[in-house]
């Protein structure tokens, strides 16, 4: 019965929209939807354990690249000169992509999660968006292999060099699936657009399972070949230079400006590679500044020019581009949506929603803080 219900779903590939030029042909990978449906088939009539709903910051994610391994060499005295920026108004299309993943609950045999992506683009002073999902997944020990297979298939490599099977735990599955979708969308946008600015949420550091160097390099290469520029914004960087947070160095500078951090030796793990030049960007008045990664193979002038284009063609609030802000807003799950997805799963797969006891609360009462797991 459950299977029959799943078979009834009607899904289509993304229709054409008013994307800038060739992005109109953007299509959601059918395998992604099919994987979602297939994993849901594993749900037997049973219980959906209501999880402790973590806040966004508590949502278990794979450790980010920069914070764990990336350290700047402390021996060198920094000589940072701000690069002043000028806005360039030339109607360059700006495209931002962001993906959210959320654990929806647990079943007796696995976890339920949902992934949603949002692409926002600004063209001719008009914002547009395409929201993809939510796509619910039921990840179990049994179907993990199938998920790994998809990871391999969409690692954009003929012969993937990384072995996922031992490393993808169920806890990190939502984030990993989200990364997969994000990477795919980033690739598709890079392929389908020209002369555009593509904004990512994150950095251009590669070398992990979700951010293979080869994949990232190919992405950047594709973008470059189509005269696109990828700008990756990191909202909260913990990178430090001589003990100070990177963004501290730009506080005294007059915006709009960039601080180029490259040139300072860094200690990296063997696997990690910086594919972008790291800047600290303060693009407008306000207290905020961000780590900004721009393709290492682009000359400084081009990077500065791209940043100027961003300033000239997008709204900046606290130095953060509106397009990327909207992409984040459109992809993020609210608590209400989590309830809605739970209800969807409960209804379509006859799950009974059960509130799992919070062990911390049981043991420690009012002192039981933090996530249950």
């Amino acid at each position, binding site marked *: 019965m459950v299977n029959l219900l799943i078979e009834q779903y009607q899904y289509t590939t993304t*229709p054409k929209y008013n994307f800038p030029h060739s992005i109109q042909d953007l299509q959601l990978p059918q395998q992604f939807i099919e994987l979602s449906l297939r994993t849901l088939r594993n749900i037997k009539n049973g219980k959906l354990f209501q999880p402790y709903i973590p806040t966004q910051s508590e949502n278990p994610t794979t450790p980010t690249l920069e914070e764990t391994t990336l350290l700047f060499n402390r021996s060198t005295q920094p000589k940072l000169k701000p690069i002043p920026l000028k806005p360039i108004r030339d109607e360059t299309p700006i495209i931002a992509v962001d993906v959210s993943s959320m654990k929806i609950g647990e079943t007796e045999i696995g976890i339920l999660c949902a992934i949603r992506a949002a692409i926002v683009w600004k063209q001719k002073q*008009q914002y547009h968006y*395409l929201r993809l999902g*939510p796509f619910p997944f039921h990840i179990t020990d049994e179907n993990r292999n199938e998920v790994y297979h998809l990871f391999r298939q969409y690692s954009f490599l003929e012969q993937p060099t990384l072995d996922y099977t031992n490393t993808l735990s169920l806890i990190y599955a939502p984030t990993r699936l989200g990364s997969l979708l994000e990477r795919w969308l980033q690739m598709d946008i890079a392929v389908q657009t020209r002369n555009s600015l593509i904004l990512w949420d994150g950095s251009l550091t590669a070398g992990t399972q979700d951010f293979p160097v080869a994949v990232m390099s190919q992405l950047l290469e594709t973008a470059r070949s189509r005269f696109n520029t990828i700008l990756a914004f990191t909202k909260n960087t913990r990178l430090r230079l001589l003990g100070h947070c990177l963004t501290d160095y730009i506080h005294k500078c007059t915006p709009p400006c960039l601080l180029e951090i490259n040139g300072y030796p860094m200690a990296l793990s063997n696997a990690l590679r910086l594919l972008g030049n790291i800047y600290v960007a303060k693009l407008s008045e306000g207290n905020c500044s961000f780590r900004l990664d721009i393709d290492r193979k682009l000359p400084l002038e081009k990077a500065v020019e791209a940043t100027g284009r961003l300033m000239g063609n997008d709204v900046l609030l606290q130095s953060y581009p509106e397009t990327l802000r909207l992409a984040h807003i459109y992809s993020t799950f609210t608590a*209400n949506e989590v309830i809605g997805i739970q209800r*969807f799963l409960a209804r379509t797969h006859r799950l009974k929603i059960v509130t799992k006891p919070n062990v911390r609360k049981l043991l420690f009462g009012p002192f039981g803080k933090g996530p249950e797991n």
Partner: protein
Amino acid sequence: MRLYRKEGNTIQILCFPNERVEKGDYLQVEDPKKEKALLIQVIDVQFANIPGIMEELLRDSTNNSDDINGRDLDPLDVASQITLIQDARLLLCKIRGTIQNGKLSVSSDWLPSRSKSITKKLPTQTLATLLKINEKMPIYVGETKEFSPLKVDVTALDGKLNIVTGKKGTGKSHFSKLLVLSLIDYGAPIVVLDLNGEYTHLGYTSNGKESEHYAKIHVLTPASNFKVMLSQIKLRVMINILIHALNLPGTSAQEFRRIWRFLREHTKLSLHELGEAIRNRQCNHHVKDALFSRYYTLINSGFFTDNPDDAITLEDCFEKIQTGGVLIINLRDTSFVDRQIVVEYLLGKLVEMLSCWKIKAVFLFAEEAHLYLRETYWNDIVTRMRHFGVFTTFVTNQPDTIRENIYRQADNIFLFNFTNEHDLETVSRAAKVDSETVKSIARDLPPQHCLLLGMAVKDFPIVVKVRALDVQTMGQTRLFFT
């Protein structure tokens, strides 16, 4: 629908938009284990306080602006469930009773299981059957929300004080006419104090033909076909007219009594003889002036006559409606003072006839009674006169003109829409139901919809769409532009 919480006698129920529930609906919360159900009534429908709803709405509000457009690709249609959550409703309900073994009781000293209970709508028709409100002598008042006919027992009006109230144009007079015609059908004698002449065509159908009730409807217009002779009037009634309607001072009233007794002893009670007697009376000239001025007011009212052919007696009129009928006292073109004279006479005469059992009882419909009823009569009507057999129905669009103690003693309140807070506050003081119910439901009642409160519905408030009547409407406001 799920039971969410209980506070005092208020129950909160969560429901989704596809579960159609409106204010006034009855729900039963069944507890399968206890084999009984809590009967609750929806008094307000709110949005459920969903976590994250503010973020949702803010995000969606950007979709509607001109600055951003786009669409969602949701192949699994998960969003439909999210929308459902967004639109989830919280029903505020009042506990009305318990249904157990097919019987309804007002007990509410138990609580159904929150996790196991099943909440579903209880059709009004089923409630009416449980309440047994339509068994003996049913009046078809209208349709329930489920479009089934609602009937109430006419005996719920017998010996009772009723109030029909609501703002202008909501259907009060229409409902009063419905009650009048229904009472006629059951053989009840009725008197209508018709301030605006709205009932004068009650005997005609909407296309102007005589209706089945035509023969039982008698319109009496003071100074026209409703005139009385002084000899028919008791001194007490006349003194009441002089003192209360015409403000005659006590000393002058005393002198009038002497004159009246003298004329009665000499069987000379007539307008002419009264005038002569005042003229020839040896008394203080101020008293004489006072008596003369009242005398001329009585004459000018046109309500009194010395011609036996012009005069009628209320006894004769009541004879006509003894087996069911209505006397409509058309006060439309009657001045304020004359109205008071007529009403004083009528009520005095009614009490007189009732006290000597000339008539068994009478249903009195009083439209905007504050415009002709003197202060002391209000209490008189709901206490003393009620015991004599005057069963009054007040019809008003100004609820504050009826005193609070009248509301408290009202057996039935037929409430139409009010939006004014002050009016709602006044009506909500009625002891028959909690004020929250009255305020919340009455505020949103559509035209021609009535909230029945009181004995007619055994204190279970029921909303009904009042049925149409095939009568000629006369209460509509005259318009200039159409």
